[in-house]
């Protein structure tokens, strides 16, 4: 982020407070949802990871200013995302016959 007017910073500060409250709420929901018996473990895992992803988006998007960054940063992160997803899928594919155990 470059030089900004004081008013912009004050507006951003208000946004940070809202994001902070949303993160706290997300934490509470994550804990409560983990106690809800959805029946299938996969649902509990999916819900927890979904909430964590929303929280991660809020931190990265607003606290780390990724919502309005320069193209170069997006370029770096696109490459990172590609290799990260590859890393996760390689492992999952290599254990594909055992994936069912994960959701027991």
């Amino acid at each position: 982020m470059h030089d900004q007017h004081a008013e912009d910073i004050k507006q951003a500060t208000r946004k940070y407070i809202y994001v902070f409250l949303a993160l706290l709420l997300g934490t509470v929901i994550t804990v409560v949802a983990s106690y809800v018996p959805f029946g299938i473990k996969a649902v509990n895992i999916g819900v927890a990871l979904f909430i964590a992803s929303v929280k991660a988006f809020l931190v990265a998007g607003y606290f780390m200013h990724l919502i309005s960054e320069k193209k170069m940063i997006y370029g770096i992160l696109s490459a990172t995302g590609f290799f990260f997803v590859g890393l996760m899928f390689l492992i999952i594919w290599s254990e594909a016959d055992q994936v069912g155990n994960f959701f027991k």
Partner: protein
Amino acid sequence: MDIPYTIEARPDTGLYNAKVGIWLFLASEVMLFGALFSSYVMLRVGSLEWPHGLLNVPIGTLNTVVLITSSITVVLAWASLKLKDFSKFKLFQGCTVLLALTFVIIKSFEYHDKFTHYYVQYNDGAQIVEKTGHLEGNPLNWTLATLADPARSIAEITFHPDAAKDEHGPAHGEHPAPIKIATSQIKKLESFGPWHSTYLAIYFTLTGLHALHVIGGAIVIGYFWGPGSRMWKTEPARLTNRVEVSGLFWHFVDLVWIFLFPVLYLL
């Protein structure tokens, strides 16, 4: 020699150099933690049983709140510098360091709890019995070798078995009465360290690496709060950029914990 582009943006990237540097570093960090997360998935998928309720959820939740709070104080410290309010910067930056220390202290209590929690396997005269619980006096990380040490000459231990547990929380209900076990009857004694199970191995690896990041980040943020803040008098814009860069690292540390908490404590 002046280091170029510490304040003004480079024309080709549109960013000051430290910002490009920290994002490249964070990209490598994503791959580091990504490799460990994928290891976690592989270990969990490959195991037939995965323990639940070994960690204290309220403590983990408290640490999550501590880290989230530190994330907002670090961004407010940067915003204060942007608004040229140095005293508020000192306040928020100081709060961040304190919250980081709080996180590490809470984590160390959790670790201590694991190294004083034991698994024992012994022969009660009729059969082999397995129990988990605590030793009298809460000694740290004893093994069978500790009991066999001639210098200690421990003939028997007093073992306090765990109460029944539910899936998530701490033990509830009455603790069973303590039992005395002769050292000669004990087949195996180990604390809940990383050697105890695959789950604890990945737990200590992930949280230990994360804790090292918290400590490293706290040192840098503490430096900018203390001696490094003198730069405000000579190069305020450069200090502001330094604080932003250290803040980006701190948010990443928070971001990793956002995933570690449900994965290790709740699921």
